């Protein structure tokens, strides 16, 4: 907690947990559990979206189809996060990267399975779906083989 040498009144503590609807992109979250990473594609104009969306911001069409991504990616940039926020303090420092997939969309995710000194702009990696130790569906970049 913050400690101040100055006189103060402590506010009433509250815990906030939001229940974030995922009904319109449910297939994405179910796909992760099956080891697949899906994007959505507009049925009218063909624009590909990752993260997946239910509505096309380009042509305003709400008819989207699911497309499984190839998962081959090239790292465009990265950072190793040492000083972590409260809700990530239980993790060891982690590396986050943005990778460009051959379909053209980019993905931001953790990159694992490398020593930090091996991670470079231009590195070729694989995007994989996974379920983490706490049971959360997520995705990350890993070595090609």
């Amino acid at each position, binding site marked *: 907690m913050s400690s101040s040498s100055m006189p103060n009144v402590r506010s009433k503590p509250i815990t906030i947990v939001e229940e974030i609807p995922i009904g319109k992109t449910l297939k994405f979250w179910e796909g992760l559990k099956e080891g697949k990473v899906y994007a959505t594609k507009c049925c009218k104009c063909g624009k590909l979206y990752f993260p997946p969306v239910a509505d096309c911001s380009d042509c305003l069409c709400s008819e989207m189809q699911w497309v499984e991504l190839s998962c081959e990616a090239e790292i465009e940039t990265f*950072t190793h996060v040492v000083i972590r*926020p409260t809700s990530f303090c239980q993790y060891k420092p982690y590396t986050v990267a943005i990778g460009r997939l051959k379909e053209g969309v980019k993905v931001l995710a953790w990159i694992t399975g490398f020593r930090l000194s091996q991670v470079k702009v231009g590195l070729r990696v694989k995007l994989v779906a996974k379920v983490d130790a706490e049971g959360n569906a997520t995705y990350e970049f890993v070595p090609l083989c």
Partner: protein
Amino acid sequence: MRKVAVIGVGNSRFGIRNDVNVSEIAFEAVKPSLEDAGLAAKDIEFVALGSVGAGAWYEELLPAVIVGEYCGLTKAGLMRVEAACASGSAAFFSAYSAVASGHVDVAMALGVEKMREIDTPTAMEWIGRAGYYFWEFHNFGLTFPAYYALYASAHMAKYGTTEEDLALVAVKNHKYASMNPVAHLRNKVTVDEVLSSMVIASPLKLYDCSPMTDGAAAVIVTSEEKARQLKIDTPVWVAGIGYSSGTANLSKRQDFVGLEASVLASQRAYKAAGITPDQVDFAEVHDCFTIAEIMAYEDIGFCPRGEGVKLLREGQTEIGGRIPVNMDGGLKAKGHPIGATGCSMIYELTRQLREEAVEKGRQVPLKNYIGLAHNVGGTGHYCYVTVLRR
């Protein structure tokens, strides 16, 4: 549209201000701005308050109302404005628009932030969530330094920018903050000290980051006619304002070597002011992290893309150089009370343009009497560029 003048500015002392609450620190900016303009609080017809952490890193959910009451501004038209770290500039734009449109004759932009009432990891949490919580924070724990670190890694890979180059921004801005009595960090630093400070999110280290700061700044604007009526000695005119925005997902950006929102906002501001970048005498740019200042030089046209470090290495952005930048210490060392920063930039531009009361060693030489403030919200999620002219 009517011409609009800045006629009063005030800035609280920036720092860890556990001696004051949100209203009291705002008062420290409001009072001198009113005295500067020769007005009373009741003369202010409209107030736009920029603040981000209401109910998150400080306790009040409706700071405009709380602060309004405390400073005697109740009954004025009132709003809180949010544009992340550019909230102060967005508030200034709102106040400017209220006067330019003829809705009111006198308006105030007030930026205020209290960031040090909570512990540091929780503050990192809140600010990290302020990108795209769902896609970039929830699973991946991005922090604000990490967002800018992604840009730093890409810029270094593409243009050969080094960690030493980044350190030069910190060295310069700490040097000028040391002369600024309102600055949060008034210690000078060396390149070695910056390089040996702890890694926050590689390649950014502690001294590459702006501090979390408590602070407030207030700006009073009025019409040309009213400025004449009030017999204002040295009105500083709003020559032009430009604005733009970027995607919430960083993964949807074209590249990570510059902020498109900054490019577009600055182009619009230059057009509105009828000037070119080389006519700007000095600037305040958004150096929340050292890499951000280098990208700003390139984004707002002070140099070609990839040559920002050249300006730094040659000392071109110091006093005596081609275009002094952040002569108040910048966000990096003056401090970055998020919602107050934009108004504090206008405070600095105004004082510099008036050539008055600026501490010895910080006054910029003026040729065209034009100053520019570049204020980014988030990681290029918002951008406002404001050009002032005396």
